């Protein structure tokens, strides 16, 4: 089992997500971002940075995060917007957030799983990445996009090329929605990501892709988004 240091930005949704017993079971230690300087990152296999954390609180730690990555560590940023200031290789573009696409079953949100054979998807269901997203990413050279939005870039990638470690970045914000008691798919995605990080195979980001499944169309999970 991999050990996880979960950074806490002090928001209610960080608190209520991290104190959910199922989430807490995956987390080795929780640290407020202000106390991150006292944490020894190398003591953990994974450092988790939650969504909607203030980038200015993490910028002072940029060099330490880079050194941790260069030492082979894994950083997971659920906070792509603003993350370029403290993590390497991140290029993110804001997009209009569409909370409503799922109201019309005929609409295809264009989300595609690019690497169905990646170990992440042993833990995350194909429908669990299908909801609204906050921006899209251009993966740096050598990074592997796991989830794309058709014609719009990546929503979730693993970068093992920029550093000697592993940087996982997404524009989905499951901690916010799970911690707000808000959206079933966000909860499933968060549980799945954490199960992958804690118990799964992290070392196979370059998983060979079966050509027959190179490009999988993902269907929305009815009732999984929002409420009512």
């Amino acid at each position, binding site marked *: 089992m991999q050990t996880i240091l979960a950074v806490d930005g*002090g928001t*209610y949704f960080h*608190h*209520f997500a991290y104190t959910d017993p199922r989430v807490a079971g995956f987390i080795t230690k929780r640290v407020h971002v202000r106390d991150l300087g006292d944490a020894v990152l190398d003591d953990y296999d994974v450092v988790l940075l939650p969504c909607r954390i*203030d980038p200015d*609180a993490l910028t002072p730690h940029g060099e330490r995060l880079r050194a941790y990555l260069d030492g082979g560590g894994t950083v997971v940023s659920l906070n792509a917007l603003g993350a370029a200031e403290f993590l390497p290789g991140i290029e993110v573009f804001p997009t209009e957030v569409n909370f409503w696409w799922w109201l019309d079953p005929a609409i295809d949100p264009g989300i595609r799983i690019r690497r169905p054979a990646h170990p992440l998807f042993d833990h995350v269901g194909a429908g669990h990445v299908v909801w609204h997203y906050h921006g899209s990413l251009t993966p740096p050279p050598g990074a592997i996009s796991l989830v794309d939005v058709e014609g719009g870039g990546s929503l979730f990638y693993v970068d093992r090329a920029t550093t000697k470690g592993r940087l996982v970045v997404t524009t989905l914000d499951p901690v916010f929605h799970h911690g707000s*008691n808000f959206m079933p798919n966000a909860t499933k995605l968060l549980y799945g990501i954490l199960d992958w990080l804690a118990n799964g195979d992290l070392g196979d980001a370059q998983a060979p892709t079966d050509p027959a499944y190179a490009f999988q169309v993902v269907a929305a999970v009815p009732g999984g988004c*929002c*409420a*009512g």
Partner: protein
Amino acid sequence: MNKTCLFLRCQRDHNPGALAGRVEARHLSELAGLDLHGYGAILVSMLTDQISLAEHSGQLEAFLDDGGTLVFNGHVAHPPINGLGQFVPQQGRGIDSLTIHRLADHPVYDGVAAQDLTFRRGVAGFYARGHNPLPAGAQALNGLGPDKVPVDWVWQRPGGGTVLMHCGLDLWAFAGDPTTASRMAPQLLAWLYSDMQGNA
């Protein structure tokens, strides 16, 4: 002295359009260095670092004792002042459990239809998904679900000052809605400023 509203920014580019030009925006990290006598109200966003905010409880309670108003949005995880309790998630499922009911009139909700809080584009659940417990003596404004559990309330503190609680997305986040929900942000500011003039 004319007082103004202090908006506690959570990120450097956190500038809600509905508040632009009507509030003084300062990052939460600046709070300790601020003389709060110049402000009649403090606006707290749902994105706030509540762990850091709670460290300023003495400063916030002194501000309230002096007659100030605290507007709090979001779920309480780390109570910033005495008398506030931790968020309780809504029980039950479906639209009934997420329906908003008006319990008392208040200038912030003047002309705001409860239905426009319950539904956005026909979807329930954006406005509130649980409640922050009502302090003794507080007035419930809007209730949630069949039990009409108060999710919005106004509390005249025994020690002085007023707390306006909204247990959900920031009230000013609805300013662009094509419904009566858009009335909340301007009416909130109007209420705060008229209250300051009344206390001058």
